[in-house]
């Protein structure tokens, strides 16, 4: 959340094909929704865990039957016993696989906001009561990337005689944010085939998780002329004043002392700093400044410049239709600007 964000480092938005659950899965999800409404904390148990053999499980059953045929044909009781042992192992592994997930407690701890086109990292807190711990659990959001984790058994120590404390373990599960706004990551899949890979035990959880997704920063010229000019509240701004008001691409004839050398040194191109007169002391990011862009790109451009000013250390304000944030320059300000951009309803702007 507090890590500096370099807009230039953000990967271009991937056009991910919209994932739609299959019809069978849709029925299954509907059924799950009926059984368990979204909650911030979920305890895994027989109400929400499902088990079914994997392909390998059916293969193993086939193997047991093969041994059974072998034992029957040779009238060999020990081979028969082995085939029964394997079938029993399959049955017992249902319980072991179930026990590996049962009793786990999943809590939504939060999410780091991210820019559209990035992965949003949701942090979940896992705790369990099983003395053996819980092994090799795969977790992912619907359509998201899977990750695996093991829940280490709580260390049995004499130093906690009350025995009530439960260590929990944070895990991070990412989901792709394709659009700005609020991201509801969808259902969370937890699955495991431990210990033998024959049985898959899984659950789809309705977790009450939500993350703010900022617009994807989009580089656009900052129209210095329009700085607050149209508002007419602060009089006619005059370029060439003392206060820094923005950057524009360098044109021959701009004064050399106005060149943004920092930018130049970073090989970001040659810009001239523009200074507005004293009447317009503050820098404003304005909805109206980017009217030539479609609304979403307008927000992206505002986002880009917000980050840019933040990086350059220039206090800036935000004016959106129906929302105004006074100029400021700190982490808190940046976050409120970014989340205002994230939450902005473009339909309000007409």
């Amino acid at each position: 959340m507090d890590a500096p964000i370099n807009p230039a480092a953000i990967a271009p938005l991937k056009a991910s094909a919209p994932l739609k659950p299959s019809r069978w899965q849709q029925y299954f999800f509907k059924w799950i929704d009926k059984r368990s409404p979204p909650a911030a904390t979920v305890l895994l148990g027989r109400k929400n865990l499902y088990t079914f053999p994997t392909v390998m499980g059916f293969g193993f059953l086939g193997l047991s039957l093969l041994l059974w045929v072998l034992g029957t044909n040779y009238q060999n009781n020990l081979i028969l016993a082995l085939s029964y042992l394997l079938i029993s192992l399959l049955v017992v592994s249902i319980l072991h696989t179930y026990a590996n997930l049962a009793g786990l407690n999943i809590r939504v701890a939060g999410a780091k906001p991210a820019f559209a086109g990035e992965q949003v990292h949701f942090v979940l807190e896992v705790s369990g009561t099983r003395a053996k711990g819980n092994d090799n659990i795969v977790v992912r959001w619907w359509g998201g990337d899977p990750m695996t984790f093991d829940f280490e058994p709580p260390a049995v120590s004499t130093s906690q005689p009350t025995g009530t404390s439960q260590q929990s373990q944070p895990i991070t599960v990412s989901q792709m944010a394709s659009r700005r706004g609020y991201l509801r990551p969808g259902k969370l899949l937890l699955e495991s085939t431990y210990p033998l890979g024959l049985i898959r035990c899984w659950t789809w959880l309705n977790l009450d998780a939500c993350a703010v997704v900022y617009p994807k920063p989009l580089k656009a010229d900052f129209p210095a002329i329009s700085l607050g000019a149209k508002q007419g509240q602060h009089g006619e701004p005059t370029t060439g004043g003392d206060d820094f008001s923005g950057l524009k691409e360098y044109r021959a004839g701009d004064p050399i002392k106005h060149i943004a050398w920092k930018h130049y040194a970073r090989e970001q191109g040659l810009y001239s700093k523009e200074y507005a007169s004293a009447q317009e002391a503050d820098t404003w990011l304005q909805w109206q400044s980017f009217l030539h862009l479609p609304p979403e790109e307008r927000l992206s451009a505002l986002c880009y410049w917000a980050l840019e000013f933040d990086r350059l250390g220039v206090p800036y304000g935000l004016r959106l239709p129906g929302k105004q944030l006074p100029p400021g320059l700190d982490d808190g300000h940046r976050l409120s600007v970014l989340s205002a951009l994230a939450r902005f309803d473009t339909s309000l702007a007409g």
Partner: protein
Amino acid sequence: MDASIEAFEQHKLIRHENLLWLIVAQGVAIVPLLFHLPLWMWLMWLGAMVWRLRIYAGKLAFPTTVTKFILGTACVAGLMLSYRGQVGVEPMIGFLVCAFILKLLELRTHKDGLLLLFIGFIAVGAQFLFTQTFLMAFYAWASCVALVTAWQTIYLTRRVGVIYKLKSGFLMLLHALPLMVVMFVIMPRLGPLWHVPLPQGAGQTGFSDSLSPGDLGQLVKSQGTAFRVSFNAGQAPSPSGMYWRGLVLDEFDGRTWRLSAQWDMRLKNGQRFVPKPAGGNNLMDYTVQLEPHQYPWLFALAEPIKVTSAKTTRQNIHITQQGLLTAHHPVASRMQYTVLSASADDLTWSALGAAEHTQLLRLPTGTNPQAQALGQSWREQYQAPQAIIAAALKWYNQDFYYTLEPPVLGKHSVDEFLWTTKRGFCEHFASSFAVLMRAAGIPARVVVGYQGGTYNALEDYWRVSQSDAHAWVEVWIAKRWQRVDPTSAVAPQRIEQGIDRALDEQDRALVGAGHYQAPQWLGALRERMDAAGYVWNRWVLNYDTSKQSDLFARWLGGTEPWRIGAAFIGLIAVMLGGYTLWVIRPHGARKTPLQKAIKQFDKTCLTLGYRRYREESLAVFAYRLAEQKREYQAACHDIARISEHVLYREDHADERTLMAALKQFPKPIHHP
């Protein structure tokens, strides 16, 4: 995103630790089979292991498709050469083991690992085609533990110790065991679905179908078990009366006794004797559990009138004209059959045919002239067959000596034995006695089999070992066959007390060093082991439909399908219920004694009207309680103080004091 998926797929690759476990598990499963397969497979196995480890080390690459094809073809060709193109169990198992070994070379992903383990289980099953002893079953169990442990490590990503892994693999199999037993006992048994070739098995043991001087002497030195017998009803005969007939030899060439050409073991089913209507007083009903000896003949007491074989033996048994038992095929796996024998007095015998009579008196001319002359002289002297027999036995009783290492005999073996060496073993006595009888005009034949047995009181059965091998004579007197054992005239101890009593020190040493002089505890242990093996054979290996129905009848009161089904479902339900409680226990982290004491303390406080909050430590709560309940102040302060000691000093003595204080709350603890 692609990179992360790739990283995720990396999880599904076999790691080094998995690889070692898989190699170990494969080795454990494969070694018993390799002893039955061509020697080059050992090399192949070692080569594959080295190759795979080199791949891991990055020194070698995985084999290409072409290499794999060449290797596979080479294996098949090698098997064809080794077995000369035969199709049988061994080549099939050889093929399985080849696939098992070559799979090692393409072990990359979890799926490959699982396939390898699956073949491993088949290999464990294949071991049972060769050996089914208790020890082998135990070894197979150990192999399964190794396989399951290797299997679990594929999915285990945490770092845990070897012992932990083995333990969890073992526990998992242990959980599966009760269910297996239920299925084993209750699942219906079917007959063979189609014909399958049997393993060729080991070399033949026991005696062959001919008897020359010195044959049995070799056999007697072997300590192996020939068969075990339990008498189902009625008294077992005394060991001296247990003559287990195996083969009847009725043709003599001057040195060797053989089966006569007319005698056909398989077809003749018409018995020479039928039970008398009034008979049946002295019937003996017994079950024989025969170790495989690769011959078709079986063993029974005279005279068998009825025989039934266990289903698992898959063989029919016939009683031949000579009162012998014969199976359809050589006995290649352990076999069990039940025999009803009647004593000779209770039977009506049909007379000998003329051809048969001639056959039973025939002696090759020109051999053993002295013996033939002696027999003829007896015939003229005594007339009555009984008198002739008595004379012969008296002759033996003079200065013959029973020994395991008799001098080597030449062409006229009987003459040399009777007049020159006078030292011999049971086959010398039987052979010469039969010659004398034939010379004296009494139809006689040599019978080979076993005599006696060792009683095992633990499981109430008799063990007959190879060292009980014996030969005796049957003579046709008074229109029936009668047994005469010339050895008993010389060494009655042999018959009364077994072979170890009949031999002197020097010979005893020959009969398996240490076998007869074993310390008592070792003897007892051996007896116990043998009893365990017997129970194993009887209840596990020979558990079949009939045993199953007996069991159902005894436990369920009937064999109707509904009873069996109900019992099955009931047992499974009880078992799964038990598992659910034991394995799953959703919040079932086992509590330490201290945690239990704390729980008890919390309960006590709750009855007093005070609740300890989740986040509240024991000390904080105790101080709070002390404030509010003055009367418990002392006890509360103690608990608070000791719990802090436990917390900071981590001393087990403190822990015990705390437990005591918690348990006897609200009484204050006794200060020592």
